[in-house]
Each structure stands twice: as structure tokens, then as C-alpha cells.
């Protein structure tokens, strides 16, 4: 999102090119775009290989992008492989995080309180700087998740000031996902693998990576302004056809899906009611006990989920007893503190916590935000140390 788009509105497309208007950019010219964004005042954040995974961190230039890297994902397992012959920069599915930590900080100072000599308390807001960040290589699932985070943090009666400031500074360079992982199911949720105008959060530029380079199009006026300065040429029919075939193959590679009971069976589940009502109706299903035998209640699924937004608060007083800092940090429905209410932990057992996570994500989210809270990124499957697969658990509950 940038200055030219309306904050918080999903898919609102200002000056976007039509799908057919994509131009072709040589792969080496991507650095030109990155340099332009940097000189335009953006800090670049993009995918890089670190500690055996593809993570989004500050990017110096295109040479740091994960050229030739591929991922292999399975329940509870993630590995990277390097192919020196591959020229591609984005031939992998998402790693553990992407946009969420940039807008919903894992831990942040919300306010400080100071006590003066007379005993009066003074409170002070502590907002983030409002830094402009250009994120390179955002996937469709994460754009869908960003739209949901926007709905939660910005579109309610009390917009979140810290989220808003971070969100407003984002410039999004999206890329179609050409290599979904074995754990991915964005095609089934209707959120990917293609980046499309009007679906998910608005993006500024969209890339489709081919063997020789990229098809590029703009999704905002700011995106169009950058695109106009790039050494691009009209895309050929063959390049368009290759991009389309690649997109179809990316869909065909996906095997997982969420159950879609009732009249909406077969439809992408957020277009219809999906599992709304289906899990609350199975509150006492014996399968909750079954999954709790395997669930570690570690909260990894919620931490990597790009739509999970729960936070806890912590007060950190100083030693002198004259000031205190109030922090907010990622919490999880798998912690005791999450359901602690005045002396009682409401969800003391793992089966209650897993039920809370799955029921909210796939069922009651519909009533709250108008669609499922799952965008099919598969992160909760890959990054669960016990390899619990939410599509399989949902299937067991709603066969």
C-alpha cells in the first residue's frame, strides 16, 4: 500500500493495467527496480536464505535474492535445495513468515507511563516511525492474509494506530507463486497461486517469473510510475502463454483442500459459507481428543499463520519505580494466558485450545470477517513440529 491507495481497502485498484497489459522485464533488470525503490526512500525487504529457510529480511540488492533455491515441505518438515543451473529467484513456496511481522509487530512498545515528583502519572503514546518499506516477492496467499489483517486491525470501530502506521508505509511487489509446496492449498481456498487485481490486499507491482525474466504489471499509480521507468518491452504471445501454463501447473500441483460441506461443495470455501457452523456444531466431537494426543500446544501454527492476530500485553516497570513500559506481543490461543480470566484458565486442556484455533480459523471467522481465516498457505502444516495437518483434521471432523 502506498500514498496513492486507500488504506485498508482490499483490491481497490487505482490505475491498474489489465492482465493483458503486462510487459516483459529481463531478470537482470529487476535490480533497476530495486535501486529505484531505494532511491525513492524505501527500505527493501525481500526473501533470502538464512538458517536453512527462506525468510523476508532487509535486502541490499537483487544479488541477495534466493536464486536457484527450491524448497521441499511436508508436515513438520522444511528443507532447502540449491540448483546452480536454475536462474529463477522465486522458484519456491513461502517460508515461515512474510508480511505479518512487518505490520503486526511480534513485540512492540505501545505506551510509557511516567510518575512525576507530585505522584501524577503521565502517559505517552509510542508509535512506530512509519518507515516506508518495499516488500519484494509477496505471494497471493499473503495478500489475502494482509486483507484479513487489515479487516481486523483497521476496519473495526477502533483502528490500531501502530498497525496503521506500518501498513501505510508498505509498497508491495507481488509475485505469482509458480512452485507451490506439497503443503500448499491456496487454490482450494481461492486465494492463489496467481496474484489478481481485486482479490486480497491491493498491490503495487505484480511479477510473473519465467525462465528468461518477468512479466510485470502495475496495480497502483505508484506502481505504474516505477514501471514506466523500467527498461521493459511488450510481452510476446509465447511469454504470456508460458505464464498461463505455469499458473495452471501451479494449481495442478496442489492436492490438499479443506472440506466444503453442503450446497457449497466443490466451490472455493471462502466464496461460500465453507465450514461456517460446521465446527461449532461439532463442539463435542471425539476427534478433538484425538488431535490433542498429538498436539504439542506449542503455538507454532498460530505464530506462522499469516492471519492470526492475537496479542498479549506486558507491563515492564523500571527499577526506580517511576516509569513503566507497556508492550504488546504475539500471543496464541495455545497458551494458558490466552484464556485466563480472573483466576481461571478457561481452556486448560489442549483439546480445548486446538478446538478454539480450528473453530475460529475455519468456522466463526466467517461471521466475524465474512470469510474463512485460512488462506491455504500451509505454513501451520509445515511448521508444526508434530506434523499436524489442518486439512486432515478438518476432514476428520467434517467428512
Amino acid at each position, binding site marked *: 500500500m502506498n500514498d496513492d491507495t486507500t488504506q485498508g481497502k482490499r483490491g481497490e485498484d487505482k490505475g491498474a493495467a489489465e492482465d493483458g497489459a503486462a510487459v516483459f522485464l529481463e531478470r537482470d533488470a529487476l535490480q533497476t527496480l530495486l535501486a529505484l525503490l531505494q532511491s525513492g526512500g524505501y527500505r527493501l525487504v525481500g526473501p533470502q536464505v*538464512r*538458517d*536453512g*529457510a527462506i*525468510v523476508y529480511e532487509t535486502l541490499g540488492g537483487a544479488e541477495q535474492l534466493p536464486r536457484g533455491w527450491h524448497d521441499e515441505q511436508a508436515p*513438520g*518438515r*522444511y*528443507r532447502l535445495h540449491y540448483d546452480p543451473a536454475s536462474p529463477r529467484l522465486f522458484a519456491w513456496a513461502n*517460508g*515461515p*513468515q512474510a508480511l505479518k*511481522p512487518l505490520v503486526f509487530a*511480534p*513485540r512492540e512498545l505501545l505506551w510509557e507511563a511516567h510518575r512525576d515528583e507530585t505522584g501524577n502519572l503521565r502517559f505517552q503514546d509510542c508509535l512506530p516511525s512509519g518507515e516506508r518499506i518495499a516488500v519484494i516477492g509477496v505471494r497471493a496467499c499473503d495478500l489475502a492474509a494482509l486483507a484479513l489483517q487489515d479487516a481486523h486491525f483497521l476496519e473495526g470501530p477502533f483502528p490500531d494506530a501502530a498497525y496503521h502506521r506500518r501498513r501505510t508505509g508498505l509498497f508491495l511487489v507481488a509475485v505469482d507463486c509458480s512452485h507451490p509446496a506439497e503443503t500448499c492449498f491456496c487454490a482450494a481456498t481461492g486465494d492463489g497461486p496467481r496474484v489478481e487485481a481485486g482479490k486480497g490486499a491491493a498491490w503495487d507491482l505484480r511479477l510473473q517469473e519465467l525462465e528468461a525474466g518477468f512479466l510485470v504489471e502495475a496495480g497502483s499509480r505508484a506502481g505504474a510510475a516505477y514501471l514506466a521507468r523500467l527498461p521493459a518491452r511488450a510481452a510476446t504471445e509465447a511469454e504470456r502463454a508460458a505464464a498461463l501454463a505455469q499458473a495452471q501447473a501451479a494449481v495442478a500441483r496442489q492436492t490438499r483442500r479443506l472440506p466444503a460441506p453442503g450446497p457449497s461443495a466443490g466451490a472455493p470455501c471462502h466464496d461460500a459459507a465453507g465450514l461456517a457452523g460446521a465446527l461449532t456444531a461439532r463442539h463435542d466431537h471425539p476427534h478433538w481428543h484425538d488431535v*490433542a*494426543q*498429538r*498436539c*504439542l*500446544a*506449542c*503455538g*507454532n501454527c498460530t*505464530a*506462522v499463520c499469516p492471519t492470526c492476530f492475537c496479542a498479549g500485553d*506486558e507491563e*515492564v*516497570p*523500571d*527499577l*526506580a*519505580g517511576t516509569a513503566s513500559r507497556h508492550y504488546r*506481543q*504475539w*500471543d*496464541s490461543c*495455545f*497458551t*494458558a*494466558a490466552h484464556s485466563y480470566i480472573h483466576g481461571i484458565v478457561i481452556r*486448560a*486442556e*489442549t483439546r480445548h485450545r486446538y478446538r478454539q484455533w480450528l473453530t475460529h480459523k475455519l468456522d466463526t471467522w466467517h461471521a466475524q470477517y465474512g470469510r474463512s481465516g485460512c488462506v491455504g498457505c500451509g505454513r501451520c502444516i*509445515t*511448521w*508444526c*513440529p*508434530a506434523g499436524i495437518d489442518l486439512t486432515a483434521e478438518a476432514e476428520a471432523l467434517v467428512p
Partner: protein
Amino acid sequence: MNPRPPAAPRLRVAVHKFTSCDGCQLAFLNLGEQLLELAERVDLVHFAEAGPVDPDAAVDIAFVEGSISTPEEVERIGRIRRASRYLITLGACATAGGIQALRNFADGDAWLRSLYARPETIRSLATVTPIARHVKVDWELWGCPVSGRQVLAAITSLLAGVTPRAEEDKLCLACKRGQAVCVMVARGEPCMGPVTRTGCGALCPRFGRACYGCYGPAENVNTRSHSRCLAGLGLAPEAVRARYHFITSQAPAFLAAGNSAQDDVT
């Protein structure tokens, strides 16, 4: 139930040592400037590692480092408890036995006889036990060593008249907040994070090493499933047992998990 916090503004504090390596006292000392700031608000009446020595002083807060491994220590911890308003264990040894509690799984006498020229000069108990097996403990600080931040947080809470807040979430959440890549999922490392309480700032995983559980069990752990995960990564049942029976072996959840590891993974 937690006791009522103290109302008096200037607290008397003691730091006692039992069977331990002194590392937790050093973690306390390493607070540096903050320790000087702390000295403005409390009286450190006994802290041998830092200077002041008055082991029998009556205090508001007694921090206790180390576990009970000798007859003399059994007697001394009782005296300290009687002279202290609040007793807080400091680190893995005091809270869950420490590395020396490994002798609980072996024949300690046989070790003595094989290692020492004159074993009859050594008076040690057959087993090593956490402080809470001997006296009432008001709050526990975990870790090998303890986190200085947590020590300060406990004292500032008591100074403010509120009960210290227990940090008992799984380490995984701290890893994810710190953007550390999961060593278990991405590298197949046998990490104890999913059953271990947070507090260390995910120190080991941030350096690519599997958590070895020095902060002891988190709340609501599923050790059976975790043991199976470790076995799935290639650990033999005995190696799974050894992960639980390590630095915090006397924590009930880890003691039981180690004892049942063989059954859990087969």
C-alpha cells in the same frame, strides 16, 4: 496460592548458594549498572559472590541458588526459610535439581568409591533434590543460568507490591517472535522448545542449536507426543530419555517423561 506481596519500600535481600556452579549468581552480577540501581532501592545484605556476607540475616527476599545434596544443606535451607519472608529459587539447580541430580539415576556411592582416594571424607546424600522438596518456595526462577531480566522483574514486582509474573509459555513462541527459523522443522534438530518454558529469549535456537530444556517444563506440556517427534527425528528411546533427564530432571513433568520415554516411543 501466591503470598501477599510486601508493602515495605526498602527490601532486604540475600543471595544464598547451595550445590551449584555459581553461574546464576554471576548472571545476577552481570546485570552491572542495573545492579547498582537496584542497590539504591534494596539492601543486599548477603551476596558472597558480590561482597556482603551475612548468611544468617533476616531478609524480605532470599534468592537460593543450588540444589540440596548434603546433610548440611538440608539443615541450612531450613534456617534460611525461617529467616526469610519470601524465598525464590534461582535457576535450574535450585528449581529442578541441576546437572548434579543426574546421580539420582546412577549409583552415587559407586561413583564416589571409583573417583575419590578417600571417599569416607565425603558426606553427600544419595539423591539430589530441588529446594521445594525441603521448604516452601514462593516463586521459582528457572534456567541454567537464570535470566538477569527475570531476576530483576521479580524484584521490581515485589517492590511495586504485585506478585511476580510467571513466564510459562513454550519456548516456540519466543523463537517465532524473534524470527528464529525452527531448528526442529528446518534441520531436524531434536529441540526441547515445544515442552520448555520461555524466559531465555530463545538463546540456543537463535544460534542454530536445539533447545536443551534448561528452563524446565512449560505449562500444559505434551511430552508423550514430543518424545515421539524426537524419535521420528532419529533419536533412540535412551536418547529421548536423556533429553528429559538432563539439567531439569527433577521437574515432575520431565522426570515422568524420561521415565516413560521407552514406552512412549515404541
